[in-house]
């Protein structure tokens, strides 16, 4: 049997993110103030369409060079160290989108320059040239658990003795391609998301997000202690109705948190069934642990949400207060949902979760003694 959790402690040497509010400190400040970055905007950008909740760093429409490159450049400037992408300092790039929106732009205006950063390989090779990264780049794409898997892979490389430090970089910027897809699934609609609320119709928002983390084997005050993964493989866009997937992941990661007083940053996109199953699983396995989601403000940053929200958790810990479920509402599907911000005092750990298509689940234990 393989272990049900990957207990691979890693130190967090550096971590930051980018959202429409700014870096992790600015974003966490906005969340603590209860602000929403989501605004109702046309689903296809300049081409119009229904108004849906999007949290964007500027216009969603694709450009040449890609509209997200300046934002990514500003984030990458904050990464400490150099020679990333070498054998002992490998780089893991994760995304669910890469530059895929530019393929849709190409089908509209036939400008071949859009194709240079469309497919994942072309996008990553462009970033390697842009930022001087070396050849040792792992590229992971598993929809909305992509960044989380990148953190797992970094921990595995460190514990296998194959790397001294690992840089994980993730980015997902919304495009008409992606917004149109989620709109077609009818979960991106005219309502703002209210994670974990009991209401008639569920809805999500989408948001731009990027983040990085530098991980080491060194013990740091804030560290990732363990990861749990589970892939239901029940349905492309739905979870097992009995909640078995949530339960498997929650049980595994909760086992690593014994003896700690933890809070939970859930996936909480605003869909009804998945939100309820997640809240119930964590209420069952970690009774008394407050549960929050920040996607009611920032939207779902897709494949990057795991690392964007880790950076926000760290910023909240530095600030001494953790944001509540911005955009949430009563009644909630469990009593554990925290709508208001709360003090970090009394907690010494956090469980951070992500979910994805295919019934993919990922959870990590963040220790903050």
């Amino acid at each position: 049997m393989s272990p049900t959790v990957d207990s691979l402690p890693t130190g967090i040497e550096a971590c930051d993110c980018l959202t429409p509010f700014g870096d992790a400190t600015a974003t966490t400040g906005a969340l603590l103030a209860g602000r929403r970055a989501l605004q109702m905007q046309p689903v296809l950008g300049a081409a119009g369409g229904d108004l849906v909740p999007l949290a964007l760093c500027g216009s969603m429409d694709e450009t040449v060079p890609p509209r997200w490159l300046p934002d990514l450049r500003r984030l990458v400037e904050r990464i400490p160290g150099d020679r990333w992408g070498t054998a002992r300092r490998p780089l893991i790039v994760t995304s669910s989108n890469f530059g895929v929106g530019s393929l849709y732009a190409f089908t509209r205006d036939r400008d071949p320059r859009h194709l240079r950063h469309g497919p994942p390989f072309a996008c990553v090779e462009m970033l390697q040239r842009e930022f001087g990264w070396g050849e040792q780049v792992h590229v992971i794409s598993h929809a909305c658990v992509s960044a989380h898997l990148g953190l797992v892979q970094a921990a595995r490389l460190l514990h296998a003795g194959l790397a001294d430090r690992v840089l994980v970089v993730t980015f997902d910027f919304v495009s008409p391609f992606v917004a149109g897809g989620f709109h077609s699934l009818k979960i991106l609609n005219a309502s703002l998301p209210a994670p974990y609320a009991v209401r008639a119709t569920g809805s999500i928002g989408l948001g731009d997000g990027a983040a990085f983390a530098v991980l080491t084997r060194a013990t740091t005050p804030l560290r990732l202690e363990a990861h749990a993964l589970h892939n239901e493989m029940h349905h492309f866009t739905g979870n097992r109705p009995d909640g078995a997937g949530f339960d498997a992941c929650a049980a595994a990661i909760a086992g690593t948190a014994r003896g700690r007083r933890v809070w939970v940053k859930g996936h909480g996109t605003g869909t009804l069934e998945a939100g309820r199953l997640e809240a119930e699983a964590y209420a069952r396995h970690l009774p008394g642990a407050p549960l929050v989601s920040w996607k009611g403000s920032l939207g779902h940053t897709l494949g990057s949400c795991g690392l964007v929200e880790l950076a926000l958790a760290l910023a909240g810990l530095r600030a001494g207060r953790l944001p509540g479920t911005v955009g949430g509402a009563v009644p909630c599907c469990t009593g554990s949902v925290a709508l208001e911000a709360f003090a970090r005092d009394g907690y010494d750990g956090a469980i951070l979760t992500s979910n994805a298509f295919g019934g993919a689940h990922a959870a990590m234990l963040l220790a903050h003694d």
Partner: protein
Amino acid sequence: MIERHIHFLRVEHPAAAETADGARDRLAAKFSRGALRRMTHLGLLVGSTVDGLAIGLDDTVVYATTYAETRALEDYLTSFPEASPLLFQTSIHPSAVQQVLIGRQQPVRRFFPLTGRRRLVEQALLTALIDPAPQVVLLGGEERGTWMLDHGMASDRAFAFALSLRAEPAGAIGRVAFAPDGADQETGPCPTLPDFAEALAGRREMHWRGAGGGFTLQWS
């Protein structure tokens, strides 16, 4: 040195002209009728390679593809402004493996879908080699594109492979290994995914340098 032994290998190299519908006819016996109807060419090929291979919850799946579901992506792009929900979800990486495992209703704990191009093969091998599972199923493949191929953004051929990698050497048909030495400067070209698939099909040995060490593919 870290190594795993090859206990199962199957490679799909369909005729160059095979379409998804052609693969559906050729491989129909391997899939349920419900699953077959919606599967992509790549999904069908990947599914065929693992036909008969038991995959359990404790096994890890590693999947490597540069271009993934190109045809679903091409068709999704042309579905605008009325975006197709089915093509959207099918185009999302790692759809091919999900098509297969959802068809089997087979959960797995660890699933690492990788993409990229230049060093994709060695990333996939490293991911498999450092995994704690008793069996790592290493999958890879591509499907042939149409208009995206004209722009160099899709595979020019369809193929898929599956390897079952275990720690035990007894009964193995080959092995993959990585010997780290930290010598960064000596990185050489990494085999492409099609090259690797051809080496598997022909039971051809491979050796190359990358990731600060040497990779080996050997046959018993």
